[in-house]
């Protein structure tokens, strides 16, 4: 715990917060899509992120090419996995009581994590590609985090462009607001749900790839990202996609800032405490969303 906090330290922390925040925003956007379009709480979201991370690992170790290019593999692969999961299992718990989707996605998560443990073993893996940092004045910007940040921002912006400008994107937003009305307007709601889950999984997969170059990879790494995505959604308001963006940034900032004042252990707890606090004080999210 520091006694003297210099502006440089604050600056460092803010930058780190934003770097992390972009990743959280991107991944949480996926979870927001699933909850918004289908009212499903997807506990397996982080597990898909983990699979994306492993995709990157194997890409780098078997092909030896730039791991950032593995996004071209992990995103489509996870998209397809998402389609498969939605088509076979998740579709049956859409609009069901929350217990059903919680349990089902938990079951999927366990199955996938165990599959990963069986095939990849629980050994820690890592992708050593970029090391070192750029120095901007007193602030050190880790290269890998910076580039991951860049990709995260790009992908998130693309996702938003997609949601705002394309026909499918608009259909997704319409379905999130009111699925019954959307159906009456001729939108093929089951198909929208399918694609939404696929896209969300692709976002999770991308998150995994971008995280793989920074942190260690192991089968259970996804859980913490699921929780943080929950928090982001709660912060930003359910069904509020721009809210997910802001929520992610906020989480990143708060996490990093709290590491200035608290031990690393407790700053882990910050995310969870924040989750419970926000739920109790402003369940509609900081930006307001549906109270439903």
């Amino acid at each position, binding site marked *: 715990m520091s006694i003297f906090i210099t502006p440089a330290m604050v600056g460092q922390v803010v930058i780190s917060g934003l770097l992390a925040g972009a990743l959280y925003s991107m991944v949480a956007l996926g979870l927001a899509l699933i909850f918004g379009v289908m009212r499903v*709480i997807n506990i397996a979201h982080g597990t898909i992120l983990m699979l994306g991370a492993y995709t990157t690992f194997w890409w780098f170790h078997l092909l030896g090419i730039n791991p950032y290019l593995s996004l071209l593999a992990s995103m489509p692969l996870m998209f397809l996995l998402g389609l498969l999961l939605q088509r076979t299992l998740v579709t049956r718990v859409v609009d069901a*009581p*929350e217990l059903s989707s919680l349990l089902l996605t*938990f079951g999927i998560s366990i199955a996938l994590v165990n599959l990963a443990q069986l095939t990849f073993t629980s050994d820690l893996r890592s992708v050593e590609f970029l090391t070192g940092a750029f120095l901007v004045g007193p602030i050190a910007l880790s290269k890998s985090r910076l580039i991951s940040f860049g990709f995260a921002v790009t992908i998130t912006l693309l996702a938003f462009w997609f949601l705002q400008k394309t026909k499918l994107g608009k259909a997704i937003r319409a379905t999130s607001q009111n699925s019954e009305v959307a159906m009456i307007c001729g939108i093929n709601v089951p198909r929208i749900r399918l694609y939404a889950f696929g896209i969300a999984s692709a976002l999770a997969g991308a998150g995994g790839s971008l995280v793989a170059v920074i942190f260690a990879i192991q089968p259970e790494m996804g859980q913490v990202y699921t929780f943080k995505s929950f928090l982001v959604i709660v912060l930003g308001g359910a069904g509020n996609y721009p809210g997910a963006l802001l929520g992610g940034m906020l989480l990143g900032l708060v996490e990093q800032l709290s590491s200035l004042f608290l*031990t690393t252990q407790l700053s882990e707890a910050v995310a*969870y405490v924040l*989750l419970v606090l926000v739920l109790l004080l402003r369940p509609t999210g900081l930006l307001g969303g549906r109270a439903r």
Partner: protein
Amino acid sequence: MRKALLAALVIGSILLALYPMVATGYSIRFMLQLFMWVALAQSWNLISGLTGYVSFGHVAFFGTGAYTAAILVTTHAWHWAPASLTGGIAGVVLALIIGYPCLRLKGPYFAIAMLGLNEVMRVLVSYFEGLTGGGLGISLPILYASVQIYYAMALAAIAVTVTAYLIISSRFGLRLMTIREDEIAAEAMGVDTARYKLYAFLLSAFIPGVVGGLYARDQGYIEPLSVFPLLTTVTMIVMALFGGKGTVWGPVLGAVLLFSFQELVWARFLYLHQILFGAIIVFVVLIMPRGILGVIQQRYHLSRSL
């Protein structure tokens, strides 16, 4: 029919009471854990089976009770029995603190809040190292007490099942169910839903706390990951669902069937076991969300206190 059931219960109780005299150490521990799962599944049933509020972090009470009891036994030389009871009280206190604000949340948000609560407890326990040993956990002084714990767990399971019976066959239980059926209508018909939800929640937190304390004594060692795992919450939920939530004997049946199956069959093939468990979850959720007794009860118009 009623008389036959009563007779079966009495005979069963006598048999179970005499069991430790003839059984091996392994069998006693098997039964002891079985009682524990019955108690957990039934406790979850009290809040979630009846009111429909999904407590997706119920293991938080178990863990809180475990740590409370462990600390009392190691640092203050308490006997494990009063320590476990205090663990139960700790669970209720926790439920009181978070129950009042959390129960105002709607369905999915309550579930997520409970999930978050469990993680908060886990991290808090890890943090206060001086008190809890942090990530290294707490080791209790060595004591062979399997037989006593067997009886204690059995008592816990019986206590919570009797509680379930009393509630479900009373108007209090009916009112709890109206909260599940249609909370707005229940409120409009004069049911103080906030108060009833809280009562059910408090009741549901006691036994997991007690059982957590007993578990700590039995295992001799606890750490944050072992007493706050999401898997435990899910397991007790699946047991309650499988047997039939909202009924008296459903959680008992579900716990007996699934735990026996798990111990006798799956535990031999570790990873297969996990995948099979995942399959069971999918089965229960998609095919039989009412559970065995739930289906039977609906079909044949039987009483819920069956």
